[in-house]
């Protein structure tokens, strides 16, 4: 179909131009060098899903300092938060490189594995072991999905910048899962219902006691 060939060629041509411009800006052209492959639809879809997932996970890890009673978990949350911030920087950079518009396809929406809005609400309203359980379970689900998505991207994505970032995130996520599982194994066994503490004077008291028990990090 003439129309379809023209349309798809137009899209590939645009993507190619963007990739060419990107390579020109960031590397010394050598004789015989050629630009990397263009961004395909999987690359774009992967980036546009990874960004909101990382943003949501970061919202959760940001809650940890004031809510967890466990110093190792506080440390893991801090490390995860900083990894997520780095991932977000690189994801946004790759998105700019791709030239694809950010259509925010998943904004305000809970995707599989994503830390849900409900989870964030619950986490914000608890502290101590109840918070820890929420944090651990939600992060693990996020990491697991993240690893799956990065594996898919490496297999079916096209642009080197995207597939390489996927490989890097997959590696760091695998490490984080290992650390998380160690902490999870060390968690006390679940004892009855989770206690949900609404923000208020109690929360302030808990924060103070966490601060007094937490050794200097």
């Amino acid at each position: 179909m003439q129309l379809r060939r023209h349309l798809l060629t137009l899209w590939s041509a645009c993507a190619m131009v963007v990739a060419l411009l990107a390579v020109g800006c960031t590397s010394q052209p050598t004789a015989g060098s050629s630009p990397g492959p263009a961004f395909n639809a999987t690359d774009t879809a992967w980036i546009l899903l990874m960004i909101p997932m990382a943003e949501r996970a970061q919202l959760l890890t940001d809650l940890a300092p004031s809510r967890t009673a466990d110093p190792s978990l506080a440390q893991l949350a801090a490390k995860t938060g900083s990894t997520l911030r780095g991932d977000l920087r690189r994801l946004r950079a790759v998105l700019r490189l791709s030239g694809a518009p950010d259509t925010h396809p998943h904004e305000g929406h809970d995707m599989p594995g994503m830390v849900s809005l409900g989870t964030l609400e619950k986490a914000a309203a608890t502290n101590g072991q109840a918070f820890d359980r929420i944090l651990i379970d939600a992060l693990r689900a996020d990491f697991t999905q993240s690893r799956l998505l990065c594996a898919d991207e490496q297999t079916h994505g096209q642009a080197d910048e995207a597939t390489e970032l996927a490989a890097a995130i997959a590696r760091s996520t695998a490490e984080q899962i290992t650390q998380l599982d160690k902490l999870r194994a060390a968690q006390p066994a679940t004892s009855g219902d989770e206690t949900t503490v609404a923000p208020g004077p109690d929360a302030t008291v808990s924060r103070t006691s966490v601060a007094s028990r937490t050794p200097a990090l």
Partner: protein
Amino acid sequence: MTPAAVPAGIVRVPEFNATCSYSHSKPDDPIVLPGLPGASHMHSFFGNKSTDAFSTTQSLLTNTPTSCTPANDLSAYWIPTLYEGDKAVEAESMIVYYGSRLIDPSATVPFPQGFRMIAGNAKTQTPTPAGSPGQYWCAGEGGEIGRSADGNWPRCAPKAHLTHQLVFPDCWDGKNLDSPDHKSHVATTYDGKCSGAYPVAIPNISFVVSYPTSGSTAGFRLASGMASSIHGDFFNAWDNAGLGHRVKDCITQKAKCNSAGTF
């Protein structure tokens, strides 16, 4: 292509249809998340039985089993899966109506193979009390007898079933098979004409989905969230001649056709 002669007594509305049963479910979306199986909320697929994260126009055209009649419609149609509690409730049918809301339906042309679009918005999470536009309703004897506790879903009389109609845009920019948000290459007409940036009239699609349930005070949820997040995806893989005939015979002539494309 000469349009078929319309016998007397045929209802004179522009319309043909694909009548589909539920095919399969996957957390896949070949339009929004191509190449990323498991990345999506759960979708219930109708039509082409091979639809998954890797589907392309070619793969749809070469995989012929479909849950729709007629057999030469190899298109993929999908919606978020409906849940009652933790149980998925699959539709008893999806009828895809192809009609026209234009003052002059004779301007309608068929979509090319590979054309795709989305209707509705998975991100919308707002209440849908009785009377909301695009709401779920009750089809059958007794109709609606109340609402769910959250007010967002109807409760139907015992013989009435939960039903939904999702209407797609009617006008196309005539150039792009898709767009980054899968919507910007099409538009809805409000004056019965296709003009401006969207000059090409395409058949107006509606998904009419019926579920074997009358609902309860517990209500439902979609894999995408609240009732307001209902959305539908259409990935065209009709046989060109089959689609072309139907547009000519049923839409441009304003004559209601059956799923075989005849009167």
